[in-house]
């Protein structure tokens, strides 16, 4: 729903800190019930996700900064087609977007996988109260919904910014960002991939840290570098490097098969728009892209919209149509703003106590002493 590229990323920090806290919460829950091995696993997930979030969020903010620098625009609805002018930024931002969406074989998936395993552990440990186990099971669904919504959001953010046709002159005149920025983004993108493929060694290093907090036995759940036979004590395995290499091999073979000879013979045509010449305005904008989700969640995302049409005098032909829509942020309206008003009002009341007259303050002190004397009587 948020279409300012930087605010969108900032809101996703809330999401990711939530995921980190899920890991921490299940670690404490499991530790309290003596399931130390699983507790160490859940803490590993929280630590791993903190590192991953630092990497992909920096990458995405650098990408967003490059976009803002090239166009001067923050609003996704005014961007578009930047990939043609800024291919390196697009590639790096795309890797960051895939990582934050929790897609294998990148790093975000590895830590979310561990977080899920922590929740599975909490829901499946017999010693924990049934209600807490049920809450952990519900959190599994919540985390699944969150990651799927992140996919939707980052397809929007990446696609509307970098793909399609430019929606404004500023977007069509953009140029690639500076070389140091490209180098920085490339390093972070490679780190996203590297942490994802090396999830095995990284997570076992973090387990050593988690072991400081919790006593740790043999691992129940393993992120392995390469495929491993499940032992009798193993609950689940994610062989990050093996899966990554298999995926790369599959993609490579299909890509070579599809483009080996056909590559040279491609006919270029206009995009199909029912026979009219394509215009940038035909494209889905960020607002329209998010509309199904806004409608699905219309109880919490209350939209206000206003359409005003002006007509040519004396005819039914519109001369201009203006559309304005805004999302009412229910959390802000119903929770934050009332709390803000209440604290302001309380401050105003408190202000009257501070009258400035020294006699008044002495009276307060005498009163306080009297009350204390009476209380300690």
């Amino acid at each position, binding site marked *: 729903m948020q279409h300012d590229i930087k605010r969108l990323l900032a809101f996703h920090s809330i999401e990711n800190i939530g995921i980190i806290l899920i890991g921490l919460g299940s670690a404490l829950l499991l530790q309290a019930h003596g399931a130390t091995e699983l507790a160490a696993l859940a803490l590993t997930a929280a630590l791993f996700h903190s590192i991953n979030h630092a990497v992909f969020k920096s990458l995405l903010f650098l990408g967003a900064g490059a976009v803002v620098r090239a166009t001067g625009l923050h609003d996704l609805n005014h961007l578009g087609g930047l990939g043609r002018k800024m291919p390196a930024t697009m590639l790096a931002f795309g890797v960051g977007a895939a990582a934050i969406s929790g897609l294998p074989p990148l790093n975000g998936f590895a830590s979310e*996988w561990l977080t899920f395993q922590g929740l599975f552990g909490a829901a499946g440990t017999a010693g924990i109260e049934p209600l807490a186990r049920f809450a952990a*099971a*519900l959190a599994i669904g919540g985390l699944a919904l969150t990651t799927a919504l992140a996919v939707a959001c980052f397809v929007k953010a990446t696609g509307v910014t970098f793909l399609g046709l430019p929606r404004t002159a500023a977007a069509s005149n953009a140029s690639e960002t500076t070389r140091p920025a490209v180098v920085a983004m490339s390093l972070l993108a490679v780190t996203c991939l590297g942490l994802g493929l090396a999830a095995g060694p990284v997570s076992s290093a973090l387990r050593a840290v988690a072991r400081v907090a919790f006593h740790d036995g043999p691992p129940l759940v393993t992120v392995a570098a390469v495929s491993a036979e499940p032992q009798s004590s193993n609950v689940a395995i994610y062989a990050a490097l093996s899966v990554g290499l298999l995926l790369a091999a599959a993609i490579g073979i299909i890509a070579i098969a599809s483009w080996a000879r056909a590559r040279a013979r491609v006919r270029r045509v206009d995009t199909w728009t029912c026979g009219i010449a394509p215009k*940038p305005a035909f494209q889905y904008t960020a607002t329209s892209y998010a509309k*199904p989700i806004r409608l699905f969640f219309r109880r919490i995302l209350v939209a206000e919209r206003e359409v005003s049409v002006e007509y040519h005098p004396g005819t039914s032909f519109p001369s201009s149509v203006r559309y304005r829509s805004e999302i009412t942020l229910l959390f802000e309206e119903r929770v934050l703003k009332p709390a803000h008003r209440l604290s302001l009002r309380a401050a105003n009341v408190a202000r009257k106590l501070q009258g400035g007259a020294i006699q008044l303050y002495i009276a307060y002190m005498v009163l306080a002493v009297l009350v204390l004397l009476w209380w300690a009587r």
Partner: protein
Amino acid sequence: MIPSAAVTTVLLAALQLIVFVLFAPFLTATIRLTKARLQSRRGPGLLQPYRDLAKWWGKLPLESNASGPVARYAPPVVLGAILTAALLVPEATSRAPLLGWGDLLVVVGLFATARFVLALSALDAGGAFGGMGSSRDVAISALAEPGLVLALAGAALAAGSSDLGIISAFGIKQGIGLLGPAHLLAAAAFAIVIVAETGHHPVDNPDTHLELTMIHEGMLIEASGRSLATLVFASELKLVVLAAVFSAAFFPFGGATEIAPGPIALGLLLGLGKMLIVGQGLALLDASIAKARIMTLPDLLGLASLLAIAGLGIQVLLP
């Protein structure tokens, strides 16, 4: 002679790969044929999807003036992710061919990778239909995801592992006793998710090219030639893999628990039979109910999540 673990893995993976790849268009063909017969049409022959794929593979590709590398290289990534997922799901045996490579969350994650890349590539050409399909697809999948993961979580908690092989072996050992109320609720939730994820009625119409109703087809509208063949095949294969996950997690009966030619052949036939049953169910849905308005889909997909939650509640709260 007992074959070594590595040889077994390679042989099983190759067998599953070949069977899935050859079977995927056939499964789609059976769905289309049943649907046509239920609508009093003759319907295309069972080889039509193969002919379609061959036709597109040989055609001169058209690319949009607006699109670039994303649209060009997305199809191999989409198919690659689904092929990788295909090898992590048990089919003929109670173990996945790639034993110890990944669990059900890795399969779900690889599907998400495919969806991300496909939805992104649909925006590349800058047309309205690509954006429409892409935006609807990610929104519907977002609603389906909790049901999918929660349903599988129910099976995973019962078996004590999120590894599909362990879940499947657990189910085979339990026999008919597996089918308790919690299990059946989770299976029902998963069935709804299959409908949503493979784009059948009432969520999407796989045969439509009416502009305003397309979801999956909308994303493929600018694809042609080998790209189109790759993407259509990927969606046919996705149905096969989802049906395999369904039977491995919820109805694993008949899967081979030992690695020997006889049981594997039997498990394979039973597995393909179960997929055909899933396909016939989808055909029946396609022919008997209308496509729902997109606005009513949260009710359907919310129902899937609720069924899965009810199953988990029975499992956890009423031991």
